[in-house]
């Protein structure tokens, strides 16, 4: 095992796959010598040149459309869009084209594309650069949607995403410097498998992406209060590993869901519904399902307001505690 950052893990996954298959091509704005907006792709252009690292104009819709077209012809593009907020611009090629091409051609065409983009707040970049827009993608059959939280998961999932024969929306959080252990040998993490990041007995907290950190901190606080928390890190939102969620909830009898996106209409709804509509999980529940998410507002620029917008350790501790007594 070696320590590396979330950023390096994603980079390493791309590098290994680009070395393995020259049809794996990174496409995006400023992904060359600038290394991409968050320097995830630093150095790739030096190693792989312009045949495998393609810098594009500021044309999100067009460049993602181009990647879809290239994928149809055999390229395995990894497209980077600088901020998840600009997924609005890429939603036509992704939802209407990448997700439907295989189906509309009755299997004749496929779109082995990875769409990489970072989501989330905390950077002081204000309302148009800080959203968590995973729900743009999660209701679209034909897409896979993953959102790794750790360097290890990021690397293994990225490699799988690149090898997938289907379009994969690969969401990243912006804590790119976060360190973690990563296996030395090659490994893959199957899309669609949640990971129990902490085993516990009393309450299940389901989360994904950057919130895993906050939830983990909260779990430590709760441990001091002798509440044993099981943390289910979804890793993949579509397909969703409902089995792991349900088994954990059936065991602990209490479910708390946490994400950064605004609560209303957020992906937590699907998770809560999954639990509420399963008879065994439903009947095990000692208390209603509790959800925590971002406030119902655009992200403010002001640093303190921005930080306060999303679930805090205290909020999670409080919500978990409310599930008892």
């Amino acid at each position: 095992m070696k320590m590396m950052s979330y950023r390096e893990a994603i980079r390493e996954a791309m590098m290994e796959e680009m070395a393995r298959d020259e049809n794996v091509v990174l496409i995006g704005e400023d992904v060359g010598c600038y290394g991409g907006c968050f320097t995830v792709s630093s150095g790739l252009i030096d190693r792989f040149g312009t045949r495998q690292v393609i810098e594009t104009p500021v044309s999100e819709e067009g460049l993602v459309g181009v990647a879809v077209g290239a994928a149809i012809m055999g390229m395995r593009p990894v497209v980077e869009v600088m901020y998840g907020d600009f997924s609005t611009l890429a939603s036509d090629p992704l939802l209407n084209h990448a997700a439907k091409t295989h189906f509309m051609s009755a299997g004749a065409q496929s779109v082995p594309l990875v769409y990489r983009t970072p989501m989330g707040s905390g950077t002081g970049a204000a309302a148009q650069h800080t959203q968590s827009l995973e729900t743009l993608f999660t209701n679209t059959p034909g897409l896979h949607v993953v959102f790794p939280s750790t360097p290890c998961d990021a690397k293994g999932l990225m490699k799988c995403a690149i090898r997938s024969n289907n379009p994969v929306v690969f969401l990243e959080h912006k804590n790119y410097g976060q360190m973690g252990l990563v296996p030395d040998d090659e490994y893959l993490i199957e899309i669609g498998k949640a990971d129990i990041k902490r085993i516990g007995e009393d309450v299940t907290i389901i989360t994904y992406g950057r919130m895993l950190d906050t939830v983990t901190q909260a779990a430590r606080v709760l441990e001091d209060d002798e509440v044993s928390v099981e943390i289910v890190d979804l890793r993949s939102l579509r397909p969703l590993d409902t089995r792991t969620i349900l088994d954990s909830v059936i065991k602990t009898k209490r479910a708390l869901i946490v994400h950064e996106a605004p609560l209303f209409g957020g992906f937590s709804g699907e998770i809560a519904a999954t639990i509420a509509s399963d008879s065994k999980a439903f009947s095990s529940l000692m208390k209603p399902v509790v959800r925590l998410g971002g406030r119902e507002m655009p992200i403010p620029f002001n640093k303190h307001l921005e930080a306060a917008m999303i679930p805090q350790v205290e909020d999670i501790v409080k919500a978990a505690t409310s599930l008892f007594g």
Partner: protein
Amino acid sequence: MESTSPVAILTLMIRSRTFERKIEQLFRTHKMHGTTHLAIGQEAVHAGVALGIDSSDWIVTTHRCHGHTLAKGSSVEAMIGEFFGDKRGLSKGLGGSMHLIDLKHHNAGSSAVVGSSVALATGMALQLQRSGSDNLVVAFFGDGASNRGVVHESMNMASIWSLPVLFLAEHNEYGMSSSAKKMVSVDSIADRGSSYSIKSESIDGNDVELVLSKVRDAARYIREEKRPFLLETRTYRFSGHSKSDKLLYRSREEEAEWAKKDPIGRYSQILVDRGEITYDQIAEIEQSESENIDTIVASYLEDHQELTLEESMEYVYHDEVSL
């Protein structure tokens, strides 16, 4: 390149016209479901383009794609099958009339999101270029589509990367109902080539031999100079936009003017004048094409076969590689 004898060209155009008329009738009599976009009047563009490029070159079509697809060589059976939602159709009945895909004939299909297909075509060309292929991609788009931003983005990328794309503007004077005169801020879409340092030309799209020869020139230029090209073909759709169109937005006089420039009528006249064919022979072609389609339609009407819901769900995701 398919045979380009004048008679073959004329036959191809007649096949398309016959096909469209048949489809029109099937919709009028509610034998077919959904919507349809006929390209009656635009046959010269389709024949000229398909015959002017190599059969291994690719096309990316539009919502109005019957003519493109026929001209590129697809079988009438497979097309009609698709229109009937039959599992013997081009996409087993899953795609429908706006999504005719036929990889065997290097037709990558289209997008029903007007204009979005231009980016797909550009991306295909990028991968062709990377893989050292000598083939090009034709990106068909209409005067309406020309105002979509993605067309601008695509042309810019095709230019900076010198991609083998033939941007083929099919200017038929109208979008759905809106006149290009009001909606397109320039007289000719070809004039937009200079915005991207893309060479361009505007031609009469109802003159099939002109289209053919200009497409050949353009294809040669694309392969030799390794640059994209923008070709505008001026034409007219005689039919309504779709089955529910009442044609209130244009005058009968205008239609009559264009009717005189009917590409099939014109070319028939030319070939007869040149002594290449007689009107009787043309009538024979018409009849044989018509009978062929009638037979195919009759057989589908008699024996309909469709996928089950379970079978169709198999096409949502491609199989994954095993880990």
